[in-house]
């Protein structure tokens, strides 16, 4: 939302602001358009609302244009200047909303002339003057022309080229007088590609196997193995969760937990692992519910759009936040599929920007007719126990409802709410109860007015639960509640619910039963509807062909059509960013005029067309990128390249990248042997210091640590509560999940140091690693050091590194020998084969290994 000009209708503003807002009187004489009005419109209005451009869809150089008006409707009402929007704006009837926006205000006299002109019938030429210079259309923007597959160039050093990617990169390097870097060492390569494809480090065994593999295609075999790993889906799901602003809570003040959100993540992991082609992936994500005979799978994909925030703050208008959710959906599609930042277009036209406000609301219209619901989406093994338990549960529940007269009370409650909808202001108590029902329940008015017979079973279930949870407050006296034994009932109902086995549900979209029209929201304000628009795609892109009103399904097919110039480019560009640390178009979210141009335009187009040509396989594109010689280069900084290309745009080397938050956790757990590699399922809560959730308002999101092996699951399963996010994730630049994130930052802060040094999760990993060294290696100190090094950074320690760590070991052992209590705290187990000081020293050494820059970096 841009300015939300509150509450004050024009009449009131007039009354309260006094003379300032009164309209100057019309000039008391006949006005000559050609002499007085025309020049004024030309000099003060037509720059933005004329032949050259039509901001807000408005053109003021002909009578037809003036009468047709812009997004907000006609500019004038001939004969009625006091009702004409043009006059309201030049006179600043609404404080702060004034035209022209720059330069001196129109004088009272000028406004008077305009008023008189309108009052006298607003005579002016019907059509723009023929000779009015038609401006040249703005030069077409590179990203709006469909990509055509270029022929890869032929660089001189042809032997370096492994696939066409390298031809493009090398030709450019040669043109700039640079040479590529040598291939990285094998140990570096396997650690790099393992993190990039699975988010996990290789085991020492995997490293050893790869180092010992003499076959010429050993690396390609490694890549194929990693692409088949179920952890591939986890790593790339995290990428899509960033794009989809995934979280396990509503956001905003109440920030209620979303116990079913993870089901979308589960679908993502599966879909990516089976390499669901990207065109199909897109169609299911946009419109899985509209596919003929939609099975559960495709519809679950629409859960992408269910990660928008929900505001359940008391007093909120649900329609406002439905509007904002829809805005977010449209803007996210713009960012993620089209690489077009639409934030500005929500409120106004932006000069020279290819996306107009009309375009934005036409895209918005696709999503305006979608509603939210949940779908039964059991995982394997859930159905049997659930079905078996259901009859008995139902029997007991009906008995309970009868005993406590739940149906009867609910009917009374709904009647009261219906009355409050019909007669607002009649009862404070019922008004408040209605407000609670509206913000805590979904589509409350519609469902209350429909009544139980016309609601679906799911809607009835949700309404009953809403009633049970929020019955009380001021509409029933405390005595009455006592009489009803309501607390006792709620307790029993809760207990009964706990007997029912878990049955997974998926948050999804479905076509709304309400026929909603879409209007352009003037200045982005949902309460100020302008002209109506139909679903359509942006005017500067190829048109969408559909019979009748196009649907989300048509939109989806258009996104992945061969003619769409953006989707493939934007998608492969993001992949590139993930593998090289910097995308070819650095502004991954903005391929518009404000974004940066591509560093390698031909390579980008080659990749985009290749992506489509090979059937939109994401795995195939990832394979292509990571098997290139470009990818396989060493990341060491070369002074001569650094001087010429400090940001490594030309790719004369690979990049050193600090691991993303989740991978850091995974790497520490993997090194320590604590990692639980289970795939998919619900979110988990690892240990977190007391008081973190207390910083938020939400009462229900309190952090209860997950116990048992689940607590050692990968970082992407950590429950994400929007107002009180898990601190480690935030410290290491995980997105805040409020808006789509197409590229993460990589910061370097002292809080990160404290986190890795002192967080109990990481200290436990250090203890685990020490234990592993003590158990698995029986040799001299340097041998254990070497194995620890392999577990932490995936390579053998150099002689000098061994020396330094052995020096630390000796020094630190003395510290623990002097301080037995400290040693005991650091390593609480008793061992036959190591004295407490030595065991503790291994923990301290392991802790150092897990804080090495190299540990937290993918080289």
């Amino acid at each position, binding site marked *: *939302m841009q300015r939300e000009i*509150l*509450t004050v209708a024009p*009449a*009131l503003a007039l009354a*309260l602001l006094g003379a300032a807002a009164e309209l100057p009187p019309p000039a008391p004489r006949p006005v000559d358009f050609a002499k007085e009005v025309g020049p004024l419109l030309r000099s003060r209005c037509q720059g933005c609302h004329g032949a050259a451009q039509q901001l807000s869809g408005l053109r003021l150089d002909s009578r037809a244009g003036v009468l047709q008006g812009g997004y907000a409707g006609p500019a004038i009402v001939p004969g009625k200047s006091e009702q004409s929007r043009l006059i309201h704006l030049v006179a600043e009837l609404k404080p702060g909303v004034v035209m022209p926006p720059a330069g001196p205000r129109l004088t009272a006299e000028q406004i008077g002339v305009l008023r008189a002109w309108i009052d006298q019938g607003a005579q002016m030429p019907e059509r723009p003057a023929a000779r009015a210079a038609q401006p040249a259309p703005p030069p077409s923007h590179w990203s709006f022309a469909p990509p055509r597959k270029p022929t890869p160039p032929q660089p001189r050093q042809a032997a370096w080229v492994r696939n066409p990617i390298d031809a493009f990169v090398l030709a450019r390097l040669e043109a700039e007088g640079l040479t590529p870097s040598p291939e990285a060492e094998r140990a570096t390569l396997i650690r790099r590609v393992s993190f990039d494809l699975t988010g996990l480090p290789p085991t020492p065994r995997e490293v050893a196997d790869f180092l010992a593999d003499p076959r010429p295609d050993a690396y390609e075999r490694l890549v194929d193995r990693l692409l088949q790993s179920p952890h591939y889906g986890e790593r790339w799901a995290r990428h899509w969760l960033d794009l989809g602003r995934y979280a396990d809570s509503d956001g*905003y*003040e109440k920030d209620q937990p979303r116990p079913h959100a993870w089901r979308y993540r589960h679908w993502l992991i599966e879909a990516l692992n089976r390499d669901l082609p990207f065109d199909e992936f897109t169609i299911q994500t946009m419109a899985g519910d509209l596919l003929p005979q939609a099975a559960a799978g495709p519809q679950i994909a629409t859960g992408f759009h269910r990660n928008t925030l929900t*505001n359940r*703050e*008391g*007093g909120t*208008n649900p329609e406002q936040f439905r509007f904002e959710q829809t805005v977010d959906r449209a803007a996210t599609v713009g960012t993620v599929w089209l690489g077009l*930042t639409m*934030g500005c277009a929500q409120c106004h036209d932006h000069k020279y920007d290819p996306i107009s406000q009309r375009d934005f609301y036409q895209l918005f219209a696709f999503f305006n007719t979608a509603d939210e619901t949940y779908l039964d989406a059991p995982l394997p093994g859930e159905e049997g126990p659930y079905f078996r338990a259901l009859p008995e549960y139902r029997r007991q529940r009906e008995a309970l409802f009868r005993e406590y007269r739940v149906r009867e009370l609910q009917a009374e409650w709904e009647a009261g709410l219906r009355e409050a909808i019909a007669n607002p*202001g009649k009862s*404070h108590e019922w*008004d408040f109860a209605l*407000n609670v029902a509206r913000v805590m329940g979904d589509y409350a008015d519609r469902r209350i007015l429909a009544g139980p017979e016309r609601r679906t079973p799911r809607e009835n279930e949700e309404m009953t639960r809403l009633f049970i949870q929020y019955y009380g407050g001021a509409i029933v006296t405390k005595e009455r509640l006592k009489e009803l034994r309501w607390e006792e009932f709620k307790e029993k109902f809760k207990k009964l619910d706990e007997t029912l086995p878990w049955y997974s549900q998926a948050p999804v979209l479905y076509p709304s039963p309400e026929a909603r029209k879409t209007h352009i929201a003037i200045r982005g304000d949902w309460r100020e509807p302008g002209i109506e628009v139909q679903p359509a795609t942006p005017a500067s892109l190829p048109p969408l062909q559909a019979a009748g009103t196009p649907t989300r399904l048509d939109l989806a097919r258009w996104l992945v059509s061969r003619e769409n110039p953006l989707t493939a480019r934007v998608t492969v560009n993001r992949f590139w960013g993930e593998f090289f640390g910097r995308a070819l178009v650095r*502004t991954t979210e*903005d391929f*518009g005029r404000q*974004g940066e141009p591509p560093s390698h335009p031909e390579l980008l187009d080659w990749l985009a067309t290749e992506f489509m040509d090979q059937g939109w396989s994401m795995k195939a594109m990832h394979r292509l990128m990571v098997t290139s010689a470009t990818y396989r280069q060493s990341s*060491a900084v070369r002074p001569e390249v650094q001087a010429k290309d*400090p940001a490594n745009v030309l790719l004369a080397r690979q990049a050193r990248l600090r691991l993303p938050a989740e991978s850091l956790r995974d790497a520490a757990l993997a090194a320590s042997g604590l990692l639980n590699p289970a795939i998919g399922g619900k979110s988990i809560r690892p240990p977190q*210091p007391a*008081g973190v*959730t*207390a*910083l*938020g*308002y939400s009462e229900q999101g309190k952090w209860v640590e997950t116990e048992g092996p689940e607590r050692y699951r990968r970082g992407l399963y950590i429950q994400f509560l*929007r*107002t*009180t996010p898990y*601190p480690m994730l935030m410290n290491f*630049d995980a997105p*805040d999940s409020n808006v789509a994130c197409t590229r993460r*930052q990589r910061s370097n*802060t002292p*809080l990160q*140091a*404290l*986190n890795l*040094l*002192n*967080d*109990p999760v990481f*200290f436990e990993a250090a203890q685990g690693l020490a234990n592993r060294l003590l158990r698995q290696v029986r040799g001299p100190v340097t041998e254990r050091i070497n194995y620890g090094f392999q577990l932490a950074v995936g390579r053998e320690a150099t002689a000098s590194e061994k020396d*330094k760590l052995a020096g630390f070991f000796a020094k630190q052992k003395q*510290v623990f020998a002097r301080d037995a209590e400290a040693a005991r*705290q*650091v390593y609480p187990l008793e061992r036959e084969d190591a004295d407490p000081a030595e065991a*503790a020293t291994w923990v*301290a050494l392991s*802790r*150092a290994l897990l*804080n*090495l*820059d190299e540990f937290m970096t993918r080289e």
Partner: protein
Amino acid sequence: MELREFLRIQSRRDFFRQSTGLGTMALAHLLALEGRTADMPRTDPLAPKPAHFPGKAKAVILLFMEGAPSQVDLFDPKPGLQKWHGTALPESMTKDLKLAFIKPTAKVMASPRVFTRHGQCGMELSDFLPHLGTVADEICLVRSMVTDAFNHHPAQLMLMSGTMQFGRPSMGAWVTYGLGSESQSLPGFVVLSSGKGTSGGATNFTSGFLPSTYQGVPFRSSGDPVLYLSSPPGITAETQRNTLDVLGQLNEEHRLRTGDYEIASRLAAYELAFRMQAAAPELLDFSKESPRTLEMYGIHDENKKAFATNCLLARRMVERGVRFVQLMHASWDDHTQLNKNLKKNCDITDQPVAALIRDLKQRGLLDSTLVIWGGEFGRTPMVEIRNTNEEGNEGRDHHPLAFTMWLAGGGIKPGTVVGKTDDLGFHVIEDKVHVNDLQATILHCLGFDHTRLTFRHQGRDFRLTDIHGHVVKKMLA
């Protein structure tokens, strides 16, 4: 060049070993502080930076009273409400009015509070704020605040980050981004809180699209003051030092191998973390504060203790070079039981806040410290009743059209009242100050032209005041 650089580092390293006993890693940080950008391409993002022009304020203490205190009962006396008490406002005034909970037809509730004049300036304040009255001549009361949102989280986004959109940096992040930090051992932007959690949660101190270096660091009232500040049990300072030394050696070896200066920044961050481990306990140790000072803040009063501690901490942080202290107290959201709850919050906060102003003044810090007090919006002159059967249930709803905040120190005109509301306290009728105007004025006091403190993101130069904001000259000294 690589060899020469290495030798220089070696010699500097020896120097530090002999003279201070600091580990090797401090070196990189110190080099960065010296601004040696030629040798160190990545300098410390928190290094002090000049503003656009010399500002009066060097530090900010934002006292954020979450939930919205009632200006009608604290700051903006409206004897005119008496004659409307118990009746609804005329329909002409409330047509199309949209409030969070109550209807436009709700009846007016005159404030039961007694207002008296304070200080030389004669500022009128409520009897719930006797201590603030004693520093009335230091503060600038702005009775003409307005904002755009009438729900808590959106309004908190407005106040903290200038728009209702998510993803923008908060004020503290902008200021730290603009000025860096003066402290070598504490974060530049610190968050303190008491009472309940806030509606905005982490968005109230987020760095948004700015690097996370600039995000607010919550200081906690129990457990570690900063998350993960304490070493794990059994890891003594000596062990920590040994660990950092060996890390420094190994990382330096790796830096020479990779040629990546980012590793030097990592070393610097680890050293700063180590210094924080020592500095934070010193910061929290009040034993050197005089009994009179502790008394003045009301630290020994159980009721005030948490908030008073935060106020004293705020002063100590500013003394130690922290740039932006955001002190939050929740909640003032008195939809019900206004009389009782408002008194409770005033009893907790009034004395420590006045003490903070006086303490800063007597230490000569007030001139260079900008103190800001207020909530995300105000409360209605009309009553909100959620339960007609309950005695004293009356409260007030959210009111974004007119509310009060106050500022002190750091370039602000002392002993002044800015702005006027109508007889009902419903609308601003003079010197309207939008929250974006307040933000522009705050940045001005720090030496920034708010239109020029920008960050390029998604192809656009963003700023704290979005596309609005004017410096309010009447608030300036």
